[in-house]
């Protein structure tokens, strides 16, 4: 079962969830966790811009996903949109809590976690770029582009995560592109 899971990808295997035995379900979820953790973490990090928050939200998202999974409320279709939908709710919750506070994702690690100078520079450069990127777009436009970065999500699935239609997703993308077209230094 495990080998089949890895070979065919988690989403194919999920089609058999209804027929699988309990231990197989757990193993399948473990595979899902391994395959999709970085996708969930990436989304949380780019939305929250803070490593600690991304770690917490990712752990919580998989915790909730597994609870739902065990209760028989797993994904009806593909797993990634389902996971990102759970994650998005947690991100919104986290954002509301800190609403007026802004955090410093740069140079805030303790010495024990201090990365190399090169890594630090790369990290700083990315966040400085992302700040500029975020400033030019609305939160929704930004979120759509971040989800579009996941190449295997189509407009329907992005819309499912955001709670909007596929045409609304395309509209947001178009408006985001229009804004970025005026600022080519952001994407060139």
């Amino acid at each position, binding site marked *: 079962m495990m080998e089949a899971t890895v070979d065919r990808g988690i989403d194919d295997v999920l089609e058999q969830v209804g027929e699988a035995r309990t231990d197989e379900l757990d193993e399948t979820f473990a595979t899902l966790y391994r395959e999709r*953790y970085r996708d969930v973490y990436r989304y949380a990090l780019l939305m929250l811009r803070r490593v600690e928050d991304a770690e917490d939200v990712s752990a919580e998202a998989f915790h909730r996903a597994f609870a739902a999974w065990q209760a028989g409320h797993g994904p009806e279709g593909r797993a990634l949109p389902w996971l990102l939908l759970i994650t998005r709710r947690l991100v919104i919750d986290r954002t509301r809590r800190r609403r007026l*506070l802004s*955090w410093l994702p740069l140079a805030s690690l303790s010495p024990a976690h201090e990365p190399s100078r090169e890594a630090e520079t790369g990290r700083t450069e990315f966040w400085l770029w992302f700040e500029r990127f975020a400033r030019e777009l609305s939160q929704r436009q930004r979120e759509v582009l971040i989800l579009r970065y996941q190449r295997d999500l189509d407009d329907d699935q992005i819309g499912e995560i955001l709670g909007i239609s596929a045409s609304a997703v395309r509209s947001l993308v178009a408006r985001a592109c229009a804004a970025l077209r005026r600022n080519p230094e952001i994407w060139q």
Partner: protein
Amino acid sequence: MSENQHSDDEILNGVRRRLAGAEPLIPQPPALGPAFTEAAQARPRVVVRSRLGLGGFAPLALIAALVVVVVGVGIGSQTLQGNGTGAFAGTPGPSGSPASPNYPGFGLSYQLVHPAGTQVTPAELDATKAVLIKRAESLGPTSYSVNEAPPDGITVWLEGVPDTAEVRTLIGQTGHLEFVPLPPETYGTSGSPGQKMLPTTGETIDPSLPAQFTGADLDPSLVYMREDTATGGLALEFGFKEPAASALETWSTQHVNDFFAIVLDGKVVSVPYIKSTIIGGKGEIAGDFTTQSLAELATVLQSGWLPYPLLGGETGPIGGPVESGVPLPSGLAIPSDVPMHSGAPMESGGAIHSAAPMESGVALPSGVPTGTCGPSEMCVPTGSGGPSAIESPPAASSPQL
């Protein structure tokens, strides 16, 4: 090719390429430990939460439970102090739990009191309303309204947040921040004790001491919480706007080693001293704050300060946000034609601040290892080991926060 000729695909590919810069920041999934397997086999609903991969999620759950207990104790003690800096007990907003529809709505009524006893102007009432709107938003209510009740009344309706003393304090706090120099001939300097003891946290500042700077000199966009890498705690970073930033630089140059008090609504928050010139008008308040009390202070400073103190803060009748003519405890009524403000979630305020090093920095009381920012101090991040600017007083002469 001109800018306008770039296709959407071209732009999206460019964005995708830039977003790929985040990949080194994305870790591999932490290993699922034995706790996951055991939990799965036992078929409980509660499973494994780990971002460390150290034996599964169970240890973190235990730690989280401990943190909840510790924070709860902290909340209790802060609330008992009643000094306006206590944390919210289960309050939504920047530092508390999220808004819950389970909390029924309640109203608060305030009266703006002009210190000179003269009539409050409509402009002052408008300014007060604007500040209260920001504070109400910061609590994350499911809905809220802030309405003027001329000539000097203002009412706040909140729904989805608990009606606690801390909420009322945050909403009605004047938020008057002052930087009060402590004369060296009386209070001494960092190197020599004075005739009087330095004021301690929570103490009322001597009203005869004039403020050198106030909250009006602050740039709210430069006020934010950050992790204090030296202590592992949180600190509140702030910045002055011009011309106060330049004035702070000049003033700090002339008062090296002198103490000053950071005072909020007449109560001392911190008593640091200047070690060297404060360049750029930026500083940091660090001390023995809880996350929630610091978040509350940040909210007050970010939302601005009220022109005059507010009286009141009594809880009004529960039943609806805007009801024409509904009397509130102080006798105020909400005008029927005042629009409601939506409590819809705001966009993330997670602005990224550059960690550019500053030339001025922090020094520490004797006995504290160099490079850390001890409790009860105002400090400015140092550049590459540069001289420190503001130092907390020696423990012997100034009790810690």
